[in-house]
């Protein structure tokens, strides 16, 4: 057994080492700005901004091809952070979203078609064919993809209701 494990382990180590060296030698410089913007984004690769991934969107935003408020699931908070990072003015009037929302499934109309959980970028929907689907509040980013594909219109984005875990004191008004 050892005689088969050792060469294979050695081969794997060698190839891994070569790839590691290659990735150092062939490292592609990315601008720091793009990397920092990518860290601000939700990172679910939902594609709503029109870019295929959050990384591509961050590069486009760093290059000035996208406005700071490009990220729909990120909403106002992300838009402000990106605008601050790039030093750009932010047009707050164009943002309608002010509070976090969650997808909610109306169980009376859900037919268990599984379309919503197939498109969910964060795997926040559980369910099986012809079974009721349910949303995990912790994983949902309210990207709205499920709402688009739902054939019966049973998914809505609703504002997050306060629970004991999420409740906090209001900020003192000045």
């Amino acid at each position, binding site marked *: 057994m050892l*005689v*088969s494990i050792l*060469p*294979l382990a050695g*081969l*794997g180590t060698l*190839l891994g080492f*070569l*790839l590691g060296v*290659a*990735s150092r030698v*062939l*490292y*592609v410089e990315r601008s720091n700005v793009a990397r920092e913007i990518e860290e601000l984004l939700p990172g679910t690769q939902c594609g709503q901004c029109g870019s*295929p991934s959050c990384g591509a969107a961050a590069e486009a935003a760093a290059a000035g091809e996208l406005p700071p408020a490009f990220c729909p699931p990120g909403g106002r908070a992300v838009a402000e952070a990106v605008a601050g990072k790039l030093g750009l003015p932010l047009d707050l009037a164009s943002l309608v979203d002010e509070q976090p929302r969650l997808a909610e499934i109306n169980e009376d109309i859900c037919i268990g078609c599984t379309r919503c959980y197939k498109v969910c970028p964060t795997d926040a929907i559980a369910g099986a064919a012809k079974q009721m689907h349910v949303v995990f509040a912790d994983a949902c980013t309210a990207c709205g993809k499920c709402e688009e594909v739902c054939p019966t219109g049973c998914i809505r984005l609703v504002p997050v209701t306060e629970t004991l875990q999420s409740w906090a004191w209001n900020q003192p008004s000045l």
Partner: protein
Amino acid sequence: MSDYVLMLVATALVNNVILIKFLGLCPLMGVSTKMDGALGMGLATTFVLTLAAAASWMLENWLLVPLELEYLRILSFILVIATVVQFTEMLIRKMSPSLYQVLGIYLPLITTNCAVLGVALLNVQEGYRFIESLLFGFGSAVGFTLVLVLFAGLRERLAVLQVPELYQGTPIAFIVAGLLSVAFMGFAGLA
């Protein structure tokens, strides 16, 4: 020299990897809707297939045969192919960002292209020498690219034709692939 030319023609046309050996059918159906994508996929596969054929020959003859580990062939070949694909991806990203943008998702998908593993295994089965393995890999890849581009051209024409409802989409594509395969059988007369 003429042996080598003959071998290239034989692998690219007579024993075409897609239409005669029926390897790599998934990209034939999957990435043949647009000409650009088909050409990019074909070129990336050509690079990977040639390198993988050479690397797997070295692996087989310098490691597996001396240690009598032939039963690890498929496992270790897949390891090498995955490495070559990864390396290709890094290389293209460094050398030509624009090509990297065009190929995008197709690059990593080459790992699961059965034509790549199939050619490496056929090299072993036929007992080719190094140069022959390299040519066999390159010839197969050229054949692969040729068929992918031909088929993409046909499908672009098909998209604007009035096809009976029953055959629309994939069914007519399968029929066309079958006809193309029949046409390629004609190359057997060259051999």
